[in-house]
């Protein structure tokens, strides 16, 4: 049985079924959240840590969730913020310029035991790493997660128009990178 977000929230808001409701929420979103994060931070260990942190935050703040946005976009917003914070901290900690973060993530991709993409996939991933972080996030959510622009706009807190423009630019850049390499 597939539970709707409304049903899950209902369970969570009832003290007697809160744990059950939270398990339902994790069942529904754990993989989606993990993959959004994983595509951003590349390494499995980092993605695992961040994904766990996301659900701990969801647990702590679910009481204050008013339902103004969809549960789905609310969770995604926490996940994307955590992933972007991780990348920012990484830059700050090692005093890395943007180009070096791309280089570092690219090296992680080469050495990752849990990466089994072929040459074509590797080429696409390395092209993606050349994009600015937010553009990469938009591309991942649209292309790989097949999310609607409207939902991505809600997650990223931008207008649908600017999001479409970002996606368009991202696609053009990636095509260019693929042809160049």
């Amino acid at each position, binding site marked *: 049985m597939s539970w709707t977000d409304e049903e899950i929230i209902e369970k969570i808001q009832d003290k007697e079924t809160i744990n059950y409701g939270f*398990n339902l929420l*994790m*069942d529904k979103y*754990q*993989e989606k959240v*993990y*993959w959004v994060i*994983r*595509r951003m931070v590349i390494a*499995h260990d980092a993605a*695992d840590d961040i*994904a*766990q942190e996301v*659900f*701990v935050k969801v*647990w*702590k703040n679910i009481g204050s969730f008013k339902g103004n946005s969809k549960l789905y976009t609310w969770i995604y917003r926490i996940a994307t913020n955590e992933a972007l914070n991780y990348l920012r901290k990484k830059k700050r900690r090692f005093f890395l310029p943007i180009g070096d973060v791309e280089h570092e993530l690219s090296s992680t991709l080469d050495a990752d035991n*849990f*990466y*089994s*993409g*072929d040459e*074509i*996939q*590797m080429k*696409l*991933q390395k092209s993606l790493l050349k994009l600015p972080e937010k553009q990469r996030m938009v591309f991942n959510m*649209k*292309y790989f997660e097949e999310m*609607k*622009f*409207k939902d991505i706009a809600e997650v990223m807190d931008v207008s*649908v128009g600017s999001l*479409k423009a970002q*996606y*368009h630019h991202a*696609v053009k850049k*990636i*095509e260019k990178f*693929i042809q160049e390499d």
Partner: protein
Amino acid sequence: MEEDKNIEDSGIRDFLKNSSEKEFRVPENYFDGFQKNIHSKIHQDISPWWKRPKLTIGIGTFASIVLILIVLFELDKNKKYARAELNQEDLIAYFSENIDEISESEILEGLSDNDLNVFIDQTHKNDSTKTDEKKIEEKSNEKPPTLDDFTDEEIYEYMLDEGYGSGEWDNL
């Protein structure tokens, strides 16, 4: 869904046509244990604060620093009390009464080089003052000499020095 078809990304889709489906993998059964990990993390977060390892270490360090500061502050306070409450007269009175209980080495330990130099200077001064006073006292106590203080020979020599012959003595 119409809005989502506006942007052409077929170039990338064509590029990926001949590629395998999944590029990233996860460890086996990773998602089966995921919820368990979250629950243990949540439990750790809501466990009593004194049981959290990071917090315990932090509090321990803070307590040690506070303890060291208190000890240092108390030591300094004691020193101030010692200096403030005992004036020189009290100290002298105390040491005079208990001088037998204080060994020479303890006195030397308590004295700085400067104190010793001051002490030596003062002792020298006192000695020289005393000697001068003694001499003056002796001088003031001195009585004028009488003939009984001299021997006949001394008197005879003195007379000869003054130019008196032995025959002239009877006329004196």
